[in-house]
């Protein structure tokens, strides 16, 4: 059997602090480059929420070497794919390019780590683009509910707000705010460069040293984090909005990725709501035999159900989503959900359920290993909240999870006082009225 994690990973640290994670893969003439920065919405405070995401947008707006538009053309004309994502703990820039154009991607990243212009006119244009992005999210009832649930779950910690930021801040953040955030966080010492694909290691190391080695050192500020106090009692909220479909989100405070409780809770998620995928590209599998699907969808209460447990630096949330059928109520769905959680807490989980979770994880890793892009993603992703060994050892550690660990995790986290329940109540107007 071919191991999905086969092949050595070269780890290096440049003098200026830039961490390198490199892996040769020669299955296709491609190179995938991911530059990760340790900055996300976790590093924001009220007044500048959404600024990390906005800075990410501005990184596409040009440097003296690559004026706005040129960057894009330079990558696209060779068939390269590039994108960027901002999360709660990180921001990442990715390129997958024909192997002989890899240097272009590295050049672009080295250039914009230091030289992005943040031209005032571009800042103002991007303000409306980002507000438009937020409005796109607002059109989705799931976003509206999730934003409120998260705000209710975190009163103190910056995980309180959505990555896109609050409208009030998007209207008032200045060019100076953005530039300062960029200069503080876009430093080699705050970044991990992961490259996988069709290259030779000595030449790749030489190129990276040439392009990134001369960038100034300096450390990003340590965020002054405010720890979220324990929640004392269940919190419930209701969001009203258009449509005919109700949603329920149940969010439990969950451990951080490095906690010994994280993997047992991942197995809880797998048993309750189906196997989750760690892949950015590579997909997942269905969850129709999960306990919640059986109880809620097969039980005729919901049209869909799913779970979400993110690997994060600080304790975040384990969320379960229920799309309620129009002929049933959120309360009925919630009652059935609680019965399943209670069953999980009271009755021993079966060994074959744990075995299934492990086999599913192994298959998902195999699917993710098909693509060089996803393998490059893996190299850097776990560095944002742990290190690469967290990822390399994931399957082995998962295999060591005992039934008792899973039960203990369920007992500890899946309690009412540790959760926020959000209900989206549709106010109707579901059927479009044609204005012919």
């Amino acid at each position, binding site marked *: 059997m071919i191991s999905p994690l086969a092949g050595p990973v070269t780890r290096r640290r440049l003098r200026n602090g830039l961490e390198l994670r490199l892996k040769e893969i020669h299955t296709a*003439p491609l190179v995938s480059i991911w530059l990760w920065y340790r900055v996300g919405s976790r590093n924001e405070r009220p007044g500048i929420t959404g600024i990390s995401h906005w800075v990410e947008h501005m990184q596409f707006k040009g440097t003296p070497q690559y004026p706005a538009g040129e960057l894009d053309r330079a990558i696209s004309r060779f068939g390269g794919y590039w994108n960027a994502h901002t999360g709660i703990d990180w921001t990442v820039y990715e390129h997958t390019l024909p192997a*002989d154009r890899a240097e272009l991607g590295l050049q672009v990243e080295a250039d914009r780590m230091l030289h992005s212009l943040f031209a005032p006119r571009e800042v*103002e244009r991007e303000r409306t683009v980002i507000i438009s992005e937020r409005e796109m999210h607002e059109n989705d009832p799931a976003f509206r509910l999730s934003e409120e649930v998260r705000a209710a779950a975190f009163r103190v910690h910056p995980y309180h707000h959505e990555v896109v930021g609050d409208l009030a801040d998007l209207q008032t953040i200045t060019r100076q705010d953005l530039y300062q955030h960029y200069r503080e966080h876009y430093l080699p010492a705050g970044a991990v460069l992961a490259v996988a694909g069709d290259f030779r290691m000595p030449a790749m190391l030489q190129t990276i040293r040439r392009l990134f080695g001369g960038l100034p050192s300096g450390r990003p500020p340590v965020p002054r984090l405010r720890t979220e106090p324990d929640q004392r009692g269940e919190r419930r909220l209701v969001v009203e909005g258009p449509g005919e479909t109700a949603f329920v989100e149940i969010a439990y405070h969950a451990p951080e990725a490095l906690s010994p409780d994280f993997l047992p809770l991942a197995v809880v998620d797998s048993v309750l709501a189906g196997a989750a995928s760690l892949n950015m590209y590579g997909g997942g599998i*269905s969850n129709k*035999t999960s306990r919640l699907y059986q109880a809620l969808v097969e039980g005729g209460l919901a049209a869909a159900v799913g779970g979400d447990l993110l690997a994060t630096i600080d304790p975040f949330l384990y969320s379960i989503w229920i*799309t309620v059928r129009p002929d049933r109520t959120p309360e009925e769905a919630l009652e059935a959900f609680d019965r399943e959680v209670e069953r999980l807490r009271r009755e021993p989980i079966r060994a074959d359920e744990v075995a299934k979770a492990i086999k599913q994880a192994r*298959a998902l890793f195999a699917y993710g290993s098909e693509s060089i892009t996803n393998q490059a993603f893996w190299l850097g992703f776990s560095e944002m909240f742990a290190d690469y060994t967290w990822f390399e050892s994931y399957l082995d550690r998962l295999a060591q999870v005992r039934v008792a660990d899973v039960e203990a995790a369920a007992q500890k986290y899946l309690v009412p006082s540790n959760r926020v329940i959000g209900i989206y109540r549709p106010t109707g107007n579901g059927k*479009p*009225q044609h204005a012919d």
Partner: protein
Amino acid sequence: MPTSPPLEVRSFPGPETIHRSILDNGVVLLARENFSSPSVVLTGYLEAGALDESPEQGGLADLTASALMRGTHSRTFTQIYESIESIGASLSLGSGTHFLSFRGRALAEDLELLLSLLADVLQHPVFPREQVERLVAEKITGLGLRDQDTASVAQMAFDELAYPDHPYRLPSDGTRESVARLMPADLQAFHRRKIGPTGCVIAVVGAVPSAAAAEVVARHLGDWRNPSQEHQPALPELVPLQGTVRRDVPLAGKSQCDILLGCPGPSRFDPAYIAASLGNNILGSIGMMGRIGDVVREQAGLAYYASSSLGGGPGPGAWEVGAGVAPPNVDRVIELISREIRRFVTKPVTPQELRDSQTNYIGRLPLQLETNDGVAGALLNIERYDLSLDFYQRYPDIVRAIRRDDLLAAARRFLDPERLAIGVSGTFGSRE
């Protein structure tokens, strides 16, 4: 001037590496080996879609496809899913306007199980009443969400305007009313007349020797027969638009409006398709959404997304531009996009634009063909559109041969700025 990077075209799927065989019953198998990862993809299609249903039974093909997995003579719904989920595999079926498609994935060691399951659900479904009723309720919930989604509603408005008296005017997943009327007997009848081996194409790509894949497919699908299987009706001629038509569909409580505008485009069989596709790349796709993205997002800052797409497919799929904008900016964005379309059909693209589009198309091929999924999709395209087994090896030359005049001719033939269909949905005052 940029040039295409050197490509090892022989590394792309071609006659040397694609296995193609036809079973006695007409099932076509395409296989390609890839041992770089321990997984396998099983995907394919047959001709059974919304074209084979009446408007009153809208969503029948889609519902039937989904219901195939809800139970067979020998397996219950739970047994079906337990067998695939317990090994981390997946198998799903769905239907669009022309085709019923299936897609499965597993560790290579589990291909046999996946194929036996696919063969069983295609040949021996029972459409249990309780399961169908539950599925109908789930579909109706999904359609309720669709009818509240501004992009979907704008798309439906666009389709109604762009395709009068044509099956493309209707959503392939039906309406809440039509789906609510469907009964298990309707699904059984559809299965009887539409689902059979004729026209069925299967691709197997991954860490499985092609000979072994062929043997497993033959063993599980070789005996499949359906003497009642009917052909798909031919598409009617398009009725051209006489002028620009616009429909605004109000949805309450939305922050943003979605706009869809464009015209029916070329089918994938049309000789002008590649030129139109390269042109579309320039118009609203390459990089940050091409010219449209540049004007609407980069210069005017009016939208997070504004891009164009070309449907292709067996019929005249839409050549359309979509954008999400704040309600007060709808008219301005429509004007900006219309202006770009006018420019696009008036003047040839620049030599640089064409070169960039060509090198983009050629350079991204290795990325598209990197995964088992990507290769399987390419194999199905070859079969579906009679492209020949060496199509992807010849592709760089085909793309390089396109001239600026070809793009302009394709643009003029399919896009008419004076005869656009425009669908808009969101929260605003209604008008047409």
